[in-house]
């Protein structure tokens, strides 16, 4: 099961946070701080996995943005990498050649896409088409209502 997903920039600025287990504000702050320092300190050509307390951290950098996924230790690391990758693909499909700024300015959309993809820390839907259809439908609703 996934515990959290964080997106942050190369400067360590948080861009998106999603928690799948209840945590106090202090715990969240600590995790965010630890993740940014640990991940940003990694050297090139090292593996994409880290240990943090009893969790596995799987991270990957896409352009200027780091995707950092915390999973329980019995999870499959490669699968975690693919979860990140599929999310990036989803973002890319929706925004069209996604960049960090798309996520900064439209972070609520990024959240919506994530919520279609993952639910309560598990994969809910893996199809790019289906998820995109959902998001586009809700965008249509928005345009109709205004």
């Amino acid at each position, binding site marked *: 099961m996934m515990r959290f997903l964080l997106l942050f920039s190369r400067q360590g600025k948080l861009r998106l946070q999603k928690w799948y287990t*209840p945590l106090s504000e202090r715990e969240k702050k600590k995790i965010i701080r630890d993740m940014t320092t640990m991940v940003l300190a990694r050297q090139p050509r090292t593996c994409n996995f880290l240990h943090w307390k009893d969790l596995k951290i799987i991270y990957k950098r896409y352009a200027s943005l780091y995707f950092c996924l915390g999973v329980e230790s019995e999870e499959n690391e490669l*699968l975690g990498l*693919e979860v990140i990758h599929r999310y990036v693909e989803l973002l890319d499909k929706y925004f069209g050649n996604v960049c960090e700024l*798309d996520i900064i300015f439209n972070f609520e959309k990024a959240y919506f896409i994530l919520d279609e993809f993952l639910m*309560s820390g598990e994969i*809910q839907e893996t*199809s790019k088409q289906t998820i995109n259809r*959902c998001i586009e439908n809700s965008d249509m609703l928005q345009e109709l209502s*205004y």
Partner: protein
Amino acid sequence: MSDVVEKTLTALPSLLSLDSQPGSAKLSSTSKLGALIRGITELTSKHEEEKLIQRELASLKDQVSSPNTSMRQMKEAMVRAIYCEMLGYEASFSYIHAIKLAQQGSILDKRVGYLAVTLFLNENHELLLLLVNTVLKPNVPQRYDTCNTPLVEEKLNHPKEIIRRKAVLALYKFYLIAPNQVQHIHNRFRKALCDKDPGVMFASLHIYLQMIKGYKDLTASFVTILKQVVSGKLPMDFNYHSVPAPWLQIQLLRILSILGKNDQSTSEIMYDVLDESLKRAEINHNITYAILYECVKCIYTIYPKTDLLEKAAKCIGNFVLSSKINLKYLGLKALTYVVQQDPKLALQHQMTIIECLDHPDVIIKRETLELLFRITNAQNITVIVEKMLEFLHQSKDDHTTIDLVGKVAEIAEKYPLQTMNTVFSLGGDMIQPDIPNSFLKLLSEGFESEEENKKLRLFAVDSYILLLEGETRNLPQRFLQVISWVLGEYSHLRNDLDPARVMTLLTKLLEMRQTSSETKTWVLMAMTKLCSGEASVSIARSVCEDLSSSMDTVQRQRAHELLLLSQDRALRSQLLPLCSDPEPLEVDSSLSFLDAFVSEALAAGAAPYKPPHQRQEELAQQKALSLEPYELSLPINMSSSCVTGRQSPTLMSVSSGLSGDSAELSHKGGSTTLKLEGVKRVWGREGYLSKKEPVEEVAQAEIPSPLSSPNQHTGASGTSSNTHPPIPTPEPEQEKQQLASSLFVGLGSQSSLCLVRADIYSTQDVPSHSVAVFQYSLSVIRPVVHFEVMGMLSYQSSHKSHEVEFTYKLPLTNFIRPFTVSTEQYGAMWLAFSNDTKQNLNLVTDGQDSLTDTLNVLKGKLNLHIVEIIGMEGIVACRLAQDQPCLLHCHIHAGTLAVWLRSPVPDLPDSLLYHCQRALEGT
């Protein structure tokens, strides 16, 4: 400065993209959020950012609380509030409005409302109940409520599959939070499993993974599902990079591995589909590797089947040997999992494992240690613990440290003495004081079986005696303390051991300059326990004479104790009973037995007790005023009692008792600084220094001459060891390796100087004009590069004795025999051998196949046996005359022959390597 530049650079693309896409609806840069974000990027300091956000929050607060704000504006404000919270500023005023938005807005507003709520509220927030009420109204089941399962249950029958899917996931969450709440609807899960939409079925697997144990009957269904998935029966929608539903596959594999664990009949149902999965996963993509990994894990978890295991092992090989670091990591992980069932698998990847141990990436290193931890045995324990401690020294992360220390401790429980000796020698004086304490506790309290305990203690005594008999100068202080305690406590267990001998050894420690005064008190305590019998009493007496005038109070006291107790046998046995039962001593920490004494003293006008920190404080205050000339040199509380100046006789006695204590303390403090002098060489261990000597010095072969008397013979060998020329000094690199491999030698091995054993074969009388032949069979005790065979001929002629000495240099190669083994046997032996060395050698490059050529040269010159050559790798085996094998693993690396030698015989790899080098240099 660079910070500013960086910020400008990040801001730049935003400006550019705004220009290039003026009409873009997606970049809502004209919105208030856009303005806020741009405002923040333009700032240069954290302080300014704080000011800006506070202003923003204030305006947000006005906006959300104003009754005129439309739902659309509210939604926009909520997005900004989320952004501020993400930057780390609290916007709690907006929480209630987020719920309101979720209640009242249009579907899209609701969505933003819910998003804000999930981000703002945690499990225990008081607004949560309100939210539950909100959630009950709309159709989408939310995960927060634990009380409305019936409502969600209803949704399981919803015509739309997406709703059913979400409902199943919601129930899964309920199950995780409160398993009892959903017990009554287990049949519903089964229905979900049979849902016509694969997505719903997939969602139900999450629940089954949690509670699968009770559902053995479903095995066949899971197998069928997996079969269908693997053969691509699902809609294209489920494909991920043209792999059919990988997430689903992995989930199923996990379920199967739980079902098949320790259950042969259930496992048998799955063999086919597992085989199929292995076969299908061919595409070179992360996701197929993820499936393969899960497959391998499953195969090794369920009831074993040979050909599947073989395939799985091959798969692991692909992982481990992969150049992709992520795959390597996973390969190590898989190996770690697998070696518990099949330790041989680690053998095949020995080289890679060693490479990974020195990998620049700590994560890989750590995973390798994890693997090594699983294959620890009595032979390799020293090396592994050393590696772990090495990693510990570098590690900064608390969690890792705790984890590793736990592992070392676990090993220590299995192989207590070997581990702890390593820890003490390596850790030196840097280890925490409670580690030796808990080790001693382990020794004294022991395990359950009394027999084990005795064996362990005896082993401890033996190995420590051996250590003390050698060079003790470089042993760390803490180790010496442990040694003296153990000897004091348990050397009586060894009946044939004369206490006087132990006493003598301990006296040696006392005389050493490096020994700290703290250690000396430990030694004295041990002596006190030991001294029985006349010889030891006299030793004790002379020691006491030396130390009773010591400057160190504690030592002086211990010396007096020793003196008194050594004379009064009855008192000693009462005070320090042999074999004291591990009855816990009761320590009265409140010191209640002193109450009467204290109240008496108080009644007589003594000052009440002040804790040390208070005394210190008062002293500090008084220092400014005090004119006492000797104050600084006096122990702290002595001077304070002087200053208070109330000198009733009782107070004197109390304060003098206290000051005695403090003098002890201050002396101890002094001793810690003293101790540092002796800690020059952390790597000191008697074992490896003495073992290095014979290699560097002279290789000796003694043949006890049948004609000479024993006395003469020892005399001859004594001189020879000084006069012989040293063997050619090896290159520094090789020396390092020798050092390393001798470090791996167990502590208890013999340090005899005689390297070759010669047995007298025959003797003859010599008739005139003929040849006398003396035959000896030589066998190697300790291998070296060259053996020096010396002999002496002594004869008498006309009442005059003559002696003729002769020497002969015998290379090790004379003792080497080919060793015929199969590849499997070779593999099994490889891991069991703990002495190894590695080196790159020249290749023979004239012919076609340089590896085969080179190995043939070695075979010809050194009499080795080539076991097998596969591609760039070759394995070779040989042995000394009496079944002491040495294995060579050769592979071509960067134009050289990388050779790795392993043997159970210390020094054999190094010596043999020298000859390999010579053999190849000559070509």
